């Protein structure tokens, strides 16, 4: 199955800048584009709070520009398509996020994001910028076995971290507490993704990988990285029955647990399909005695127009539920 190669862009080299301009023109009440290309909150948070910043490759919209706003991130440093921004831009972002309570640099674990954040922190040290911490986040069970969690990739389930951490950093917690909270949410979150199709790179105009019609890949990464292997494409219930058990076993999630559920659309999956998939997931969770506290179904972290989805679960306690329910006002994440 061939992917759509023609993208509605102008020149590949202008994608990043034009996309950020368009986004900020549309959502100026929430987010603002700075002269040095950062997307920052239209209304900065109060002095003394912990600033939250993340750098990441683009091409995953609404992630992460869509999560800039009250109760969410302060600053997003968007890199080129599928490419982490370099260290100097991250330092710019750290400066912009600083409102006196220190800055937490979030890293969704991929080599580029991690290496550039490390370099940025070295630069900060060299320039005497203190009170900066980095937290490395991951959730994808397909990318490394149990016991080697810290080698795993960061994928759509980090959504739970962003939401709760964002809410936390509206409060009076300090930098160390914010980092601990992020790690707590991460350590209670597990995800697994699949895809039925490839997608085209808007830079090269070429299909990113081959995916034969009627096959699917379980464990697909956010940039089309291969996972646990190909197999014949299944129906909705069978797909959930294949993907949910390894997620449950990994944490493990157990009877009596309360969870949040995310079904992330990686691009061109229809909501029609996602609702049918959710139906079986909810049924299977109920069978396992696991209570669903809340659910989100939609495109949160996409891989261009790839036809796939990720199933993410986050086990929550009282603290996490309160953070989950707290208000948020990003362009693509609104909660009253």
């Amino acid at each position, binding site marked *: 199955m061939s992917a759509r190669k023609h993208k509605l862009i102008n020149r590949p080299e202008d994608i990043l800048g034009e996309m950020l301009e368009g986004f900020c023109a549309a959502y100026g009440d929430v987010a603002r584009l700075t002269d040095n290309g950062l997307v920052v909150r239209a209304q900065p948070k109060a002095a003394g709070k912990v600033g939250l910043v993340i750098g990441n490759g683009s091409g995953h919209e609404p992630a992460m520009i869509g999560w800039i706003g009250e109760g969410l991130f302060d600053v997003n440093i968007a890199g080129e398509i599928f*490419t982490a921004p370099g260290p100097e831009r991250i330092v710019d972002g750290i400066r912009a996020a600083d409102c006196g309570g220190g800055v937490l640099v979030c890293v969704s674990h991929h080599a580029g994001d991690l290496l*550039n954040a490390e370099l940025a922190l070295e630069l900060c040290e060299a320039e005497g910028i203190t009170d900066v911490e980095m937290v490395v986040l991951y959730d994808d069970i397909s990318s490394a076995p149990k016991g080697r969690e810290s080698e795993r990739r960061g994928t759509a389930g980090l959504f739970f971290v962003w939401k709760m951490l964002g809410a936390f950093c509206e409060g009076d917690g300090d930098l160390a507490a914010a980092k601990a909270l992020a790690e707590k949410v991460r350590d209670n979150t597990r995800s697994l993704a699949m895809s039925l199709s490839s997608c085209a790179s808007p830079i090269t105009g070429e299909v*990113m990988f081959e995916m034969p019609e009627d096959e699917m890949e379980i464990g697909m990464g956010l940039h089309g*990285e291969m996972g646990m292997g190909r197999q014949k494409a299944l129906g909705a219930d069978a797909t959930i029955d294949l993907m949910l058990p390894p997620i449950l076993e990994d944490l493990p999630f157990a009877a009596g647990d309360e969870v949040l559920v995310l079904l992330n659309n990686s691009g061109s999956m229809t909501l029609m399909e996602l609702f049918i998939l959710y139906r079986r997931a909810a049924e299977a969770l109920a069978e396992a005695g696991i209570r669903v506290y809340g659910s989100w179904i939609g495109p949160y972290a996409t891989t261009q127009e790839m036809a796939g989805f990720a199933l993410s679960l986050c086990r929550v306690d009282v603290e996490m539920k309160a953070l989950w329910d707290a208000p948020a006002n990003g362009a693509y994440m609104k909660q009253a």
Partner: protein
Amino acid sequence: MSHIGSAEVAELIAAVARRVGEGRERLNRLDAKLGDGDHGTSISAAFALAVEQIAVLDQPEPAEIWLATAKALMNGMGGASGALFGTLFLKGVAPARGKGALTKLDVEAMWRAGLDGVKARGKAGVGDKTMVDALQPAVDAFAASDDFSGAWPAAAEAARAGAEASAAMIARQGRAKFLGERSIGHQDAGATTIALMFEAVQMWWETRE
């Protein structure tokens, strides 16, 4: 020549930028097999940026040229490869610091520091199908020769052979690692860039001599 000064170092980077620019499509094609197909586009743009930024330096030392190159690669390229190619040059700055002209031993120390930096940051060793597979043999071959005239061709030849050898390997770092055995049979793009770099320097050296 037993020393190279700032003018030569700048020429060297310019030669690399030209050669990598010529290899752009080939590098994209190689990266398309194992990664996301952009390596040629981004590395050539980053080296072109390095040349621009070197041009505006005011009477730079070799170390400053090396630093400008490092920054252009890191910030102009981004991604893991930007950090790693950037580190290759960044770590070479310290051994060059304060020197108006570089001996073969100076340059050897710069490459060695760069190689060590890349390996420390990227956690890849020889055999993992990355730029290290070309870089390590190149640095070793450079060290094993007595002077520039022996070192540059030896390094170029070793880098080329290392890049070619990467084809048979299973990727253990970079985007390609998720391909596992499916990565066998394709030469690594980053290693190929290293080979092009040393090839360019050798050719530049030949025309200088």
